[in-house]
C-alpha cells in the first residue's frame, strides 16, 4: 500500500467543485444587471433573491434535518412586520430593525421548535401551519397595531448605517450579497460536523443517537436558522415593495418555498437558489401567458412529480453529472499497527463498573425482562446469553437507552443512567453496535467513524458559522482519530469507501470502529458474531480481546456459545425474561438450569 501521510484530508474534488460553483455564482450576480439591462429583469432578480434567502435556509431544515414545515412563511411575516413596524412607526434604522425582527423570528422558532422537535416525525409540519394561521389572523384583527387588512405602507428604503440604498441596482446587490452570505452559511454547515451529523440522523436515527448525537437539538438549530433566513428574506422584500400587508407571505408563499426547494433540490444548498429562480420564473411565465389559475396545479403537480421521479431535484441531477466525472478520492492511510484509543482507558479494576439492579420491562401482559440484576466488572468481558426470546436484546436496549425501564435501576460508573436518553448514555462513554448493522449509508466509512467522535467535539454552531480556525483543527483531529480507529479494527486505508461496498464482515468491523471512536469505557456488542463465517469469528474474538486490552469493558449479547465460552470472563444467562444463572463460563456451562433452558427438558 502506498502511504500518503501528507495527503489532503478533505475530499479534494468536492471541495474544488463547490468553490468553482461559488465563484461562478458571484460572477453571474456581478454582471447580471449589466447584461440584462431592464427594470423588469432587475425586479424579478430582487424577488428571486429575497425568496432564495428563505429557501436556502429551508434546505437546511427539510433537506438536512428532514423536517417539513408547512407554514415556513410565517417567519417571513414576522420579518416583514418587524421591519415595517420598527422602521415606519418606531423610526428605527432598517438594518437594526431587520436584525431585531430576525432575532424575534428565531426566538419564536426556538420556543415552539424545542419542545415540538422532541416529538417524532411530522408534527412540526402542522405546528408551523397552525402558527402561520394564528399569526395571519392576529395580523388582520389587530388593526390598531398592524394596520389590519390594509397593512402598513410608507416603509422606508433600506439603508445601512445612514447610507441609503437608493437605486434598484444597489438593492439588487445588497439582496444578492445576502444570498451569497446565506449560501456560505449553508455550505459551511454542510461541510461541518453538523452537516455530517444531520446526514447520520437521516441515515439512521437510532445509530446516530447511539454515538451521542443529540437529534432534537440539531433539528432545533436548523429550524431556528431557517426561521432567521426566512425573516431576513421577508424584511428585504418589504423594504423593496415599501408596504407590508397580511397576505404578503401567506399560505401560498409557504407552498412556494416548499415547491422551490423540492424542485431546486432538497439535498443541496444550491437547490434553494435554483428553486427560488425556477419558481419565480414559472410564476411570471404563467402570469404572462395569462394562465394564473394554473399556478397552483402546476406547482403541486411539479412537487409531487419531482419527489417521485427525481427526489434530489435539479441540483441533484447536476451534481450527479459532475460527480460521475470525478476520480475516486485518494484515501489517506496512516502508519500501520495503530493502537486505538491511543491512551488506554484507566479505571479501578475492582470496582463494579456497570450495575443492573431489578431491571424490568413489560410489553402489555408480557414481562420481557423480569427483575434482572447483575454487575459488570471493569475491563472485563461479560456475556449475556440465553435462548431466543429470553429478553437479552431488550435488556441490552434498556442499558443503551433505547428502551425505558418499568422498574429497577442501572448505574454506570456511579451514576444512574436508566432515565437518560440514548444520546446521553452514549455521551457518558457507553458505545454500542447493532445486530442488524446500522451504518450510515449516506456517509463514507471514515465519516461514519467520525460521527463516533461527536462527544469529543467542542465547537458548536456558533463557532462553525464564525468559521473559527479551531473548528478546522478539531475536524482534522477527529478525522485522524477515525482513521486510526479504522486501522485498529483492520480497515486501514478504506475510509473513502461507501459502507455498502464492504463485505458484511467488514461492515461489522466498521461499526466496531465507529463505536470505538467514542473512546468509550464500555462497549455493548449486540450479537457481533451473527452472520460471520468461522475465520471472521476468530478475527472478531481477537479484536474483542484487543479492545479489552485497551482497558475498555465489554458487554456482549451473543448466540454463539462457543465464542462466548472462549472469550468471556463472566456469563449471565437469561430465560423467559429472568436471570437463571451467572458466573464464570466453566461453572455456568455445568449449571443444570442452563442445560435445561438450552436443551429443553
Amino acid at each position, binding site marked *: 500500500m502506498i502511504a500518503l501521510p501528507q495527503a489532503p484530508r478533505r475530499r479534494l474534488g468536492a471541495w474544488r467543485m463547490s468553490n468553482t460553483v461559488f465563484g461562478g455564482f458571484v460572477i453571474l450576480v456581478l454582471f447580471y444587471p449589466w447584461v440584462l439591462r431592464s427594470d423588469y429583469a432587475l425586479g424579478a432578480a430582487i424577488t428571486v433573491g429575497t425568496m432564495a434567502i428563505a429557501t436556502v435556509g429551508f434546505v437546511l431544515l*427539510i433537506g438536512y434535518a*428532514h*423536517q*417539513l414545515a*408547512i407554514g415556513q412563511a410565517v417567519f417571513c411575516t414576522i420579518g416583514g412586520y418587524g421591519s415595517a413596524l420598527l422602521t415606519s412607526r418606531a423610526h428605527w434604522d432598517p438594518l437594526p430593525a431587520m436584525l431585531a425582527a430576525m432575532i424575534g423570528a428565531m426566538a419564536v422558532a426556538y420556543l*415552539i421548535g*424545542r*419542545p*415540538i*422537535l*422532541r*416529538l*417524532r*416525525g*411530522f*408534527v412540526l*409540519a*402542522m*405546528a408551523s*401551519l*397552525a*402558527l402561520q*394561521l*394564528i399569526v395571519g*389572523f*392576529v395580523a388582520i*384583527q389587530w388593526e390598531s397595531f398592524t394596520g389590519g387588512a390594509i397593512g402598513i405602507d410608507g416603509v422606508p428604503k433600506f439603508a445601512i448605517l445612514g447610507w441609503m440604498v437608493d437605486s434598484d441596482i444597489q438593492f439588487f446587490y445588497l439582496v444578492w450579497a445576502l444570498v451569497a452570505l446565506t449560501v456560505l452559511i449553508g455550505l459551511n454547515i454542510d461541510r461541518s460536523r453538523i452537516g455530517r451529523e444531520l446526514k447520520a440522523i*437521516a441515515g439512521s436515527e437510532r445509530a446516530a443517537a447511539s454515538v451521542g448525537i443529540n437529534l432534537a437539538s440539531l433539528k432545533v438549530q436548523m429550524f431556528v436558522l431557517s426561521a432567521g433566513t426566512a425573516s431576513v428574506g421577508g424584511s428585504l422584500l418589504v423594504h423593496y415593495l415599501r408596504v407590508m400587508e397580511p397576505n404578503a407571505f401567506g*399560505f401560498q408563499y409557504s*407552498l412556494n418555498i*416548499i*415547491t422551490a426547494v*423540492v424542485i431546486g433540490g432538497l439535498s443541496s444548498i444550491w437547490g434553494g437558489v435554483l428553486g427560488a429562480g425556477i419558481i419565480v420564473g414559472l410564476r411570471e411565465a404563467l402570469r404572462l401567458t395569462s394562465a394564473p*389559475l*394554473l*399556478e*397552483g*396545479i402546476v*406547482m*403541486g*403537480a*411539479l*412537487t*409531487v412529480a419531482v*419527489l*417521485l421521479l427525481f*427526489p434530489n431535484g435539479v441540483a441533484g441531477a447536476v451534481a450527479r453529472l459532475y460527480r460521475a466525472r470525478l476520480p475516486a478520492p485518494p484515501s489517506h492511510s496512516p502508519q500501520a499497527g495503530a493502537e486505538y484509543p491511543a491512551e488506554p482507558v484507566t479505571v479501578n479494576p475492582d470496582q463494579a463498573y456497570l450495575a443492573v439492579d431489578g431491571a424490568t420491562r413489560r410489553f402489555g401482559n408480557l414481562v420481557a425482562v423480569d427483575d434482572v440484576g447483575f454487575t459488570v466488572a471493569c475491563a472485563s468481558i461479560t456475556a449475556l446469553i440465553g435462548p431466543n426470546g429470553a429478553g437479552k436484546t431488550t435488556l441490552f436496549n434498556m442499558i443503551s*437507552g433505547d*428502551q*425505558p425501564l418499568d422498574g429497577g435501576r442501572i448505574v454506570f460508573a456511579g451514576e444512574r443512567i*436508566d*432515565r*437518560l*436518553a*440514548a444520546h446521553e448514555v452514549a455521551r457518558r462513554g457507553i458505545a454500542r453496535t447493532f445486530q442488524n448493522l446500522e451504518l450510515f449509508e449516506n456517509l463514507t466509512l471514515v465519516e461514519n467513524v467520525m460521527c463516533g467522535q461527536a462527544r469529543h467535539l467542542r465547537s458548536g454552531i456558533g463557532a462553525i458559522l464564525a468559521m473559527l480556525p479551531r473548528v478546522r483543527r478539531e475536524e482534522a483531529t477527529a478525522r485522524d482519530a477515525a482513521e486510526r480507529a479504522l486501522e485498529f479494527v483492520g480497515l486501514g486505508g478504506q475510509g473513502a469507501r461507501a459502507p455498502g461496498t464492504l463485505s458484511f464482515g467488514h461492515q461489522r468491523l466498521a461499526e466496531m470502529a465507529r463505536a470505538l471512536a467514542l473512546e468509550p469505557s464500555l462497549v455493548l456488542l449486540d450479537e457481533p458474531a451473527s452472520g460471520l463465517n468461522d475465520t471472521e469469528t476468530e478475527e472478531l474474538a481477537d479484536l474483542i480481546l484487543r479492545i479489552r486490552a485497551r482497558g475498555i469493558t465489554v458487554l456482549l449479547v451473543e448466540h454463539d456459545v462457543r465464542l462466548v465460552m472462549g472469550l468471556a470472563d463472566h456469563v449471565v444467562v437469561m430465560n423467559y425474561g429472568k436471570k437463571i444463572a451467572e458466573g464464570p463460563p466453566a461453572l455456568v456451562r455445568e449449571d443444570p438450569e442452563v442445560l435445561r433452558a438450552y436443551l429443553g427438558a
Partner: protein
Amino acid sequence: MDLATFAQFALSGLTTGCVYALVAIGFVLCANVSGIVNFAQGEYVMVGGIVTAGLASLAVPLPVAILVAVFLGGVFGFLQERVTVAPVRRAPMFLQATVALGVAVVIQSAALIVWGKDPYGLSGFVGDDVFVLLGAYLPLQALFVWGATAAFVGAAFYLLKFTELGRAIRAVAINPGAATMMGIKTGRMSMLVFAASGAAGALAGVVIVPITSASWDSGLEFGVKGFTGAIIGGFHSPFWATAAALGLGVLESLAAGYVSSEAKDIVTYGVLLAYLMIRGGAFLRGRRVVASTGGH
C-alpha cells in the same frame, strides 16, 4: 349559565365536530396502515361538498350527486395511494408528507379550475327547517350530519373489531413485516384504507355543505382541525381520534359563542400548538417512547 344557549353552542359545535371526526379517522387509518400522514385528508371534504353542491346546481338529482361525490372521494383516495403513496413507501417520512401536501395542492387547484372561486351552497336535504333540542335551534340537516357520522364510525368500528378484514388491517398497523409474513397483502390494505378515508372525507363534505357551503379552499381548515383531533387522540386509535375531534368541535363553538367568533380559529390552532408543546416539553424528559405516529 343559560342551558339553552349552552346547548345551542355545544350542539352546533358537535355538528362541525362530526366533520373533524371523519377527517381525523382518515388521518389515523392512513398513518397507521400506510405509514403516511396524509395532508390531503381535508381536501376530500371539499371534494365531497363542492361536487354535491356543484352537481345539484346543474340540476342533477340530489341522491345521484351525493353518490357521485362519495364515490369520487373513494376513487381519489385510491388513486392517491396508487400514484403517490405506494411508490414512496420506503422513503423518509418528511418526503412522504411533502408528497401528500403536493397532492392536496393539486386537488385544491383542480377544484379551483373546475368550479371557480365562488363558494357553492346547497339547501338542506329535507329543507331548511329547524328543530329544537334542549332549547337549542338546530337545522334539520344536523341530523344528517350526526346520522352519517354515526353510521360511518359505527361501520368502521364493526369492520375493524369483528371482521377478518378488520383484523388484517389492524395487523398491518401493528406490525407490517409480521403481517406480510402471515400472508396479508399490506399494499392492498393500504389502498383500501386510502379509498375509505377519501370516501369518509367526501361523506363529511356532502352532509355539511348545506350548513357551511363549500369552496375550492375550504379543505385546508378541515384538514388542520381533523389533524388536531387525531393528534390529541393519540394518532393511534380511531376511537380517541373521533372523541377528540368531536370535543374540539364543541370547544371551538363554545369559544366562538362565549368569547367572539374571531376566537374560534385561534382556539383550535392554539390548542394544537399548546398541546404539541406540552407533549414535547413538559412531560417527556429523558427516556420515553415518544410515539405519535403510525410511521413504522
